[in-house]
């Protein structure tokens, strides 16, 4: 084994690992409650830089042949999604006051995410998926201030476990048929007419639908999102979702899907788009609304798989970038409330423009972007996906998906209506300063502006 190659190729993972070790050390020996945030921020920033460097140098390597490989496009995807973690960490200050546990768990989960994007075998993929998900079960529980949290964590754990079981079952069927653990067995299974291979592929696909919260496997998402604290919800809605989608993207590779997988790939996501957008209309809780919105967005993302290989990668990564940062912009700008439950109520947003014009404008912008209304980044992202779907010849699915996305406009506008057009709710007591959350929102805002004004330049990278 070439140790130098392992050091270089795994640079982002190594940085994260070093950060985790330092955090554990600090936690054990220093017995301080402060200082975890700068360490984890620095670690993630360094990991982003490492991944970006690997990408810009065009580094290609396979430190662990057949299991783990590094390619520039995937390093870039790593950098993009790891960058999403920066605002998440910044806005965690208010809920976790630099709790070391929180940061260790987040970094571990990020490590799992990085593994996913380099996985060449089902073994690595499984390792990555589990390492990404397990810390999140604990993170949901960490909020614990509310009775819903343990219930949410348990629900998430049980259904996440089911997904894992389905995934493993599918892998073993594929392994039984092909005798290999390489992920290329998946695309081979897609092409094969063998019943066992088809069953394996379908099970794996269902596992991803469950983890990505696609209808009818979505029921856990609203409860888990609502039960978690705000930074954890933000983490689940953006990074975990990105991890699942990118892992699926890696499985599919550049394979062009054909019948009957294409109908499966188009139909359930279409139902998710429609159902997610419809169910979000009635929500009173911000996090539940975001959960249903994320169900719809998972639908758009899986839609992208209908397109051809390179276009698919570009569409998914760009979408995750736009969707992730705009979602985080909304979370970072949520106004302070007396407690977690108050902050979560949509009513708390009423009259926000009078109290805090900046926050209202930021949330408004995030909502419009999530709704896919130009000129915000969400529009270009959605355009990219539907363009690919239509170019691949699925005109009817593209039109139905667009009409489904129209249904979503109402509930996003409802949030804006609350903030700008409703009388303010009874004044909530002023909360501690949220300067770090402000910093998080500025990061998201700058990214959003960049993507809005120079979409061509940003797309050029992927």
């Amino acid at each position: 084994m070439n140790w130098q190659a392992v050091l270089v190729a795994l640079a982002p993972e190594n940085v994260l690992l070093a950060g985790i070790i330092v955090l554990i050390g600090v936690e054990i020996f220093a017995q301080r409650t402060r200082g975890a945030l700068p360490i984890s921020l620095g670690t993630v920033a360094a990991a982003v830089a490492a991944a970006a460097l690997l990408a810009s140098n065009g580094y290609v390597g396979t430190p662990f042949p057949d299991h783990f490989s590094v390619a520039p496009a995937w390093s870039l995807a790593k950098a993009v999604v790891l960058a999403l973690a920066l605002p998440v960490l910044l806005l965690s200050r208010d809920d976790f006051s630099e709790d070391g546990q929180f940061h260790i768990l987040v970094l571990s989960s990020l490590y799992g995410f990085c593994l996913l994007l380099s996985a060449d075998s089902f073994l690595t993929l499984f390792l990555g998926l589990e390492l990404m998900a397990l810390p999140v079960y604990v993170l949901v529980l960490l909020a614990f201030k509310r009775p819903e949290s343990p219930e949410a964590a348990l629900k998430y754990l049980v259904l996440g476990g089911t997904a894992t079981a389905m995934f493993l079952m599918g892998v073993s069927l594929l392994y039984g048929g092909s005798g290999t653990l390489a992920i290329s067995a998946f695309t081979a299974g897609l092409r094969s007419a063998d019943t066992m291979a088809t069953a394996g592929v379908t099970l794996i696909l269902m596992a991803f639908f469950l983890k990505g919260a696609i209808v009818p496997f979505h029921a856990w998402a609203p409860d888990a999102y609502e039960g978690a604290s705000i930074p954890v919800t933000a983490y689940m809605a953006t990074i975990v979702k990105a991890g699942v989608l990118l892992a699926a993207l890696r499985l599919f590779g550049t394979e062009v899907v054909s019948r009957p997988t294409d109908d499966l790939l188009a139909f359930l996501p279409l139902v998710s788009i429609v159902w997610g957008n419809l169910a979000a209309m009635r929500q009173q809780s911000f996090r539940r609304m975001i959960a249903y919105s994320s169900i719809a967005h998972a639908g758009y993302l899986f839609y992208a798989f209908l397109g051809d290989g390179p276009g698919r990668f570009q569409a998914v990564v760009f979408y995750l970038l736009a969707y992730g940062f705009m979602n985080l912009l909304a979370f970072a700008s949520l106004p302070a409330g007396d407690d977690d439950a108050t902050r979560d109520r949509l009513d708390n947003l009423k009259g926000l423009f009078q109290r805090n014009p900046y926050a209202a404008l930021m949330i408004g912008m995030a909502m419009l972007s999530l709704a896919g209304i130009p000129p915000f980044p969400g529009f270009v992202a959605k355009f990219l996906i539907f363009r690919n779907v239509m170019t691949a010849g699925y005109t009817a699915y593209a039109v139905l998906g667009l009409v489904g996305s129209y249904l979503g406009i109402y509930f996003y506008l409802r949030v804006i209506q609350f903030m700008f057009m409703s009388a303010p709710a009874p004044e909530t007591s002023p909360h501690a300063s949220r300067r770090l959350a402000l910093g998080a929102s500025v990061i998201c805002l700058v990214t959003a502006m960049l993507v809005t004004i120079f979409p061509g330049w940003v797309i050029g990278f992927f």
Partner: protein
Amino acid sequence: MADATLLNAVLFLPVLGIGLLLLVPARAEGAIRWMTFWVMSMQLVLTALLYMHYDAATAGLQFETRIPWIPAWGVYYQIGLDGYNILLVLLTAFLGPLVVAGAFTAITKDVKLFYAMVFLIQFAMLGTFVAQDLFVFYLFWETMLIPMFLIIGIWGGERRIYATLKFVLYTAFGSILMLAAVIYLVFALQATTGVRSFAFADLQHAQLPLSVQLVLLSAFGLSFAIKVPIVPLHTWLPDAHVEAPTAGSVILAGVLLKMGTYGFMKLGFPLFPDATRYLSPLIMTLAVVSIIYGACLALVQDDIKKIIAYSSISHLGYVMLGLISLDLIGIQGAIIQMVSHGLTAAGLFLMVGMIYERCHTRELSAYGGLAKILPVYSVFFMILTLASIGLPTTSGFTGEFLVLLGAFKAAWPLHLHGNTYPLVMSASAVLGVVLGALYMLRFAQSFLFGVAKVPHDPVTDLNLREKLILAAIVAAVFALGLYPNEPMRKTELAAKEFQQRVSAVPIPGSAR
């Protein structure tokens, strides 16, 4: 090129305005109002300069900018002036300062946000007009929704939330189908010609069979028809108008409604000429139904804003009729009618706003004999009423007369060949003129004459600011009525191009 810089400056001046607004504290309301006013006025001056330097003898784009924006998709930031948009750009810039000045006393809540939204919608409207790339056009087209949503929703009347959601959900539905059509059209262009582009000029070369053209025209057309609005897609308009603040109504009636007819003229009809000719009986029928139905509804309203809202539906029906006549005079008339309606409807909505500020009711039956109490107001009101009816020497006459002339001129040869339907439709459209006179004169009669009554005593006549605003509009109305030749010279080449493009011999392979 310095000329192109001027057009960019006009377009981005509102963005600069928003930037300047951010620097002014929200409490300095006076400063905010005047700053907005001066920025808008500067925009008008620059637009007037553009108009004067626009060469009527040159076809195609002038003051053009073309910069790659998303190279991978062939999207260019491409803007320019041509005969299609020159008058509408001037109209938009002209109404800008008037809208701002008209809202000086009416808007007292969240003043800073209000003027930022006025700037934003001005930016989006101008951008929609000058865009020469379908992607850029769509961006601006959709961006218009957001400020209008807020303007109606924040500063509107009692049922503002209902009205603004209805407005947005109607328009967004059209837009989403248009987006699907845009994606398909660009894909079809690449598939048939190998050109990857969103430029209007390139998209005309896409070889589309009639069946595809029909679907795409329906998708584009639905979006445009909702904006116009054409009956039966008009139901959002009365609600939006009634609930919007004066400035919102003025922008809506003055410019926003023209987006639909402009869309048909610039995109819908020329991009899908075969489908347009195929559907022309249907489009003509809908136009005439809009003219008559709008007029009939205006006849029975008691809310003075609703009267003008329904009259807008009727007047824009003429624009559609002129465009679909495919006769040079009719097309020219349609363009003039767009500008004319922009001026008279904006003026009338401003006047309704002025009386509403004084009396706080829009019920027609609450007023009477205003000529005795408010002489200056009444004079302006009468002039705008007559312009709306289409009395000779006003802009309304030029527009409606040319449209009808063109419609008859196109219908007569068809009649001689045995197709009488267009002639019947044109004749029915004349009924709209009679109904127009009826509802506007009924309105003016009970509003201005008869026994003097106002719901709120004492009422003061117009102040200097209001007089100046209305004087500017009235001057423009007369200018367009007395000397329409000058603006029509600038639109003539575009009208000819439109006519040739849409009435050209069908392309091979798309025979009916």
